[in-house]
Structures are given as structure tokens and as C-alpha cells.
């Protein structure tokens, strides 16, 4: 109920655009010409290994870092030189960032106090926001009395209090334990969709990014590798880096000849462009690899890990390459370590990458 009233007030979803952002910290290049656009109302996850510049990009949008070159645009308006407190961006931090001397309610109302909103009005709005994040009864509690998950909820309410045009989440879940992380993940997504607010979400957890985001931007060494919807990112990774960073990938050596690749004794079409060199690696997901018990096979099972309904089996091929395959657990039960097997791939186009 409260959500709908907030909803109406908050809808003015913004487009966020990074143009050629570059930033060096001494010898390290944090951002190396980043171009990225977030569409109005979408949740865009910035995903990448640590040090890839994702947090720097987010902090530039918040106004805490300044680019050496390039610009940040919100709704087409250049905000690169606008100081942080006039950016109209709510932020949730990785570490607990609530003001320890203020109650949850006063924390949420802090921004409204800065904007000189009348006391009664800001308390009412803060209470409304606490209800929205499910902590309506915790208004009087101080941060040290709240659990980590509750603190991040209050931080989220605080970030939303000024009806920002953009919501910035800097690994807000990484300090929480696994179970709280899952529930809060869903809650953030629900709130974000209800409010329709453009949101940038920095994370190094690919599962988090894939499950929450409308689109995921994979970054590497200060540059954008690929920005696409989760399913596309998983199914059609644009680069070998994305393929291996998102989900599990095995590399099997193969040989390219006129648009097809010869791998594991099969000849399969190449998906996308084939690299120049004929010696390539074929990239395969574990669920696409077939493993069959075969006494004459020259591959050997070396390990298996139980995942529930499926079991991930690691197979060493004759020439030493290890391939991971997901099998239904009842099938995998028959394949103990050392069993002889044959490995095959489905008759579908496969991704190839230059051999490393």
C-alpha cells in the first residue's frame, strides 16, 4: 500500500551513461575508457573480478571519484563536475554505513533533514520507508542493536528517502551470511521493480548478478567486456573471458576447418566467428557435456562432486585435458573415480576460443 504511494512519487527513471571514463591511481589503471549505458528503470549489474574498476565506476556516478577523462551523464545531462551531495543518487555501501549515533528512523530521515524538510513530515516519510523495507517496528533501534541484514535494509531505506533518480548498490550483500543474502537479494529486486528506479549494482558474485539483474555488464581491467541480459551472457558469451567468468566452462582442444571444428572425434559447426589459428579450444558448459561409461573409452573419471539432483563429474581426457560434466546423480553413481568413459558433445554449434 505504502509502496504504491511512494511509487507514484518516485517515478522519473533516469538514463545513466558513462562515456569514455578513464581513471588512473598511480601506476594502476582503474578505468580504461569505459562506455556503458543503463536504461531507465533497469537493474544493471556491474560484474567483474576485484580490481576491474566496477566500484570506481559506481563511485564516479555517486560523485566520490572524478574521472581523469570522460564524462558521466544522467538523462543526457553531464554531471561529471556536480558535487556528490547534489547528484541525486542514493547509495548503499558494502560496509555498514549507518550513523551509529542515530536511530534507524533518524538515519532514514537524515537526508530529509539535510533538505530542511519539516520534522513531522520527515518522520512520517521515514516511517513509511522503514515499512517498505519491512522494519516498521525497528524505528527506535540503534544500528548496533540491528543485525547486518537489518542494517542494510535501513541503509536501503535511507538511500531511497530523497527519491533519488539513481540507486547505487556497492556490494551491499557481501558482508552478510548466505541465507540473509538470498532473502535480501529478492527484496532489493522487488523494491527496485516496484519503484521502477534505475539501479546500478556492483558485485563480484556472478550468481547474484545473473539472478537479480535485467542486464549484466561484465568488466575486466577497466573496460567493458560485454553487457547483455543474463541468459544471453550465459548462453552466448561474447569473449572467452566472459565465458569463463560467468558460470563454469571447460576448454577442450579442437581444430578448425572451414567453419566447423573437429573435437572429440566429432565435427561441429562453430558458433560466431572462428579465430584465425586452426588450433583452438572449444568452450563447453558442464550441462552440455555427455559422459557415458565405456570400458573401451580412453577418458577417466578423476573426481565427482555431489550438487543435489546433479553430480559434477571431472573427467580427464586421453591427452590430459580435464572436462567438467553435470550428470543426473543416479547416473553418476555408477561412475566411480577411475572408471573408463567416453565424452561427447551434442550436435550443436559450439563456442571456440584461441588456445591459451
Amino acid at each position, binding site marked *: 500500500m505504502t509502496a504504491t504511494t511512494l511509487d507514484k512519487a518516485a517515478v522519473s527513471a533516469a538514463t545513466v551513461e558513462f562515456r569514455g571514463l578513464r581513471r588512473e591511481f598511480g601506476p594502476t589503471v582503474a578505468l580504461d575508457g569505459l562506455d556503458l549505458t543503463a536504461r531507465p528503470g533497469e537493474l544493471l549489474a556491474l560484474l567483474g573480478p576485484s580490481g576491474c574498476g566496477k566500484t570506481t565506476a559506481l563511485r564516479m556516478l*555517486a*560523485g*566520490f571519484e572524478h574521472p581523469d577523462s570522460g564524462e558521466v551523464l544522467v538523462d543526457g545531462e553531464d554531471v561529471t563536475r556536480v*558535487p*556528490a*551531495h*547534489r*547528484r541525486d*543518487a*542514493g*547509495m548503499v*555501501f558494502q*560496509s555498514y*554505513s*549507518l*550513523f*551509529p*549515533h*542515530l*536511530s534507524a528512523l533518524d538515519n532514514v530521515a*537524515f*537526508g530529509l*533533514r*539535510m*533538505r530542511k524538510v519539516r520534522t513531522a513530515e520527515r518522520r512520517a516519510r521515514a516511517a513509511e520507508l522503514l515499512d517498505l523495507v519491512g522494519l516498521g517496528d525497528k524505528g527506535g533501534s*540503534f544500528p*548496533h*542493536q540491528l543485525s547486518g541484514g537489518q542494517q542494510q535494509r535501513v*541503509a536501503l531505506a*535511507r*538511500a531511497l*528517502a*530523497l527519491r533519488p533518480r539513481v540507486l*547505487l548498490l556497492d556490494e551491499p550483500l557481501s558482508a552478510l551470511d548466505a541465507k540473509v543474502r538470498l532473502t535480501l537479494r529478492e527484496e532489493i529486486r522487488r523494491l527496485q521493480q516496484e519503484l521502477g528506479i534505475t539501479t546500478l549494482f556492483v558485485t563480484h558474485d556472478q550468481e547474484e548478478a545473473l539472478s537479480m539483474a535485467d542486464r549484466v555488464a561484465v568488466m575486466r581491467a577497466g573496460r567493458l567486456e560485454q553487457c547483455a541480459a543474463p541468459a544471453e551472457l550465459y548462453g552466448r558469451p561474447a569473449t572467452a573471458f566472459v565465458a569463463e567468468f560467468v558460470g563454469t566452462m571447460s576448454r577442450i582442444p579442437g581444430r578448425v576447418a572451414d567453419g566447423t571444428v573437429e573435437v572429440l572425434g566429432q565435427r561441429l559447426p562453430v558458433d560466431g566467428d572462428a579465430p584465425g589459428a586452426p588450433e583452438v579450444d572449444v568452450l563447453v558448459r558442464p550441462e552440455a557435456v555427455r559422459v557415458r561409461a565405456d570400458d573401451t573409452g580412453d577418458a577417466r573419471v578423476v573426481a565427482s562432486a555431489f550438487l543435489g539432483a546433479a553430480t559434477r563429474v571431472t573427467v580427464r581426457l586421453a591427452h590430459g585435458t580435464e572436462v567438467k560434466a553435470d550428470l543426473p546423480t543416479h547416473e553418476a553413481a555408477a561412475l566411480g573415480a577411475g572408471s573408463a568413459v567416453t565424452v561427447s558433445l551434442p550436435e550443436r554449434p559450439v563456442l571456440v576460443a584461441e588456445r591459451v
Partner: protein
Amino acid sequence: MAGSMNTSAPSTNTSARGLNKPVRVRPWRGVVLAGAALYFLVPLAASVIFTVDVPGEGVTFDAYTRIFGTDGFVSSLLLSLELAAATIAIVLLLMVPAMVALRLGAPKLRPVVEVVCSLPLVVPPIAFVAGIGTVLKWGPEHLSRTPLFQTFTAIQNPDFPFVLVLAYVVMALPFVYRALDAGLRAMDVRTLVEAARSCGAGWPQALVQAVLPNLRGALLNASFLTLALVLGEFTVAQLLGFQPFAVWIVNVSGSQAQLSVAVSVLSLLVTWALLLALAGFGGRSRTAPRG
């Protein structure tokens, strides 16, 4: 005594013995405590007895009542308190923004500032005051034709010798630095400032509304240490020829021995009271949120 209490504890709840660690008897604790108590309490008790037990008159609190009537008590105490207030204000206005800026902007300079702020501990007050005295003598001679001459006169006004405040600010630096450093260490200044800024607070607002309230304990500590320093400071004030509280105590002790010891005991009690008040204040700030 402590030993006997410890040994009786396990016998009263033998059932819990398997769960609890067996209580060890530590007679040394009692000995050390008793030693420390003797060391501190005997001189204090001797002082009190000296002030109340006047030969031939029996026990009398005359020395204490006389304090307030003695010439110079009120004026010197007031002067000391004024000096303390000015010193606290200046040293905090100087150090709080400096240390927050240091933390946010140039964390690598921290050791340098720490060493600089600790220098007053190394330089003996006697050397310090000799330097100040030289400058005060040299300055007016060379600057007699400039407006700075007036400044030199003004800061040596005996009603409020500002030169003492300047000296005390320097002497308080090590204590204030340490108190503030401990306070700032206990919180994530950068994140708090950034959180405040993303909530629409400008720099000054972020400092005053987000950082300072969480530094309250450290500010109180720094203020208290500075107050204690200024109330007890003798060397600099005496050698520059001013008469705040500590100098007054020494001056009256020559003529009225009992009175001066009574003042010392009284000032010790006042210091304790302030310390307890501070502890209570700080303690309440921590427990108040639970209410």
C-alpha cells in the same frame, strides 16, 4: 582477602564445576592490589590528616574553610579555568578538522603528524618556556615600530595571558592527538562522510552531523586531559610571571603550609569528580540507545 573469596566460590556450586573452568586461586592479585593501594592512599591519607589534625586544636576543617577566604584563590582559579576553556576551544578547533582531513585526504602523512604532535612530550617545559621568554623579550625590541608590538603587549596581559593559551595548546597536542586518534580509529570516517554526502549533506554538514556526534567520547577525553593539564601546569606560568591556580598554590604554601596542602587535596577531589562525571557521561552515551 581476594584469595579466600575465590576459594569459597567453587564449593557453593559444585554441580556447575564440570561446566565452569575450575577457579584458580591468585593470591598475587591481592598482594599487588594492596601494594598499589598503599602506594597511592598513604600519601593522600597523610595529606588529609596533616590538614585536619592541627596540633593543640584536635580535628578541625579550618584549613578547608579558610581556602575560600584566602586572597587570590578565586581569581587564580578563575584564570586557570578561563585559560583551560580557551585552550580546549583552540586545540579542538585546530585538531579535529586537521585529523579528519588527514584520515580522508593524506593517510600516509599520519606518522609525520603523530611525531610532530608528540614533540611537546620530548621537549622539557623548561626549555620550551626559555624559548618563549626569549621571543617575548626579542620581539618588542625588533618590532617596536610595527603594529605587532601591540600584539606582543596584548598577549601578555596579566588579566588574560593569551601567550599561556598558545603554550598550552602546544603542550596539549600529544594528549589531544591520541584521544582523537583513538576516537577516529573506532569509526569508518570515510564511509560515514560518503554516506552523509550521498544523503545530500555538504562537507561541513557531513562533518558536524555525521562525524562529530560519533566522536563525542574522544572530544570529552581530549577536553578533560587538556583541562587537567592546564589546571596543573606550573613551570611555564611561573617562569613567564603569571599567576594561575598552580602558581598560587605554590606561593601560598610558603606562608600557609596546611592551607596549600588542603588546596591540593581539594583540587585532587575536584579532578576525580570531573573524571567520574566524564566516565558517567561517556558511559551513558553508550547505554542510552538501549532505552
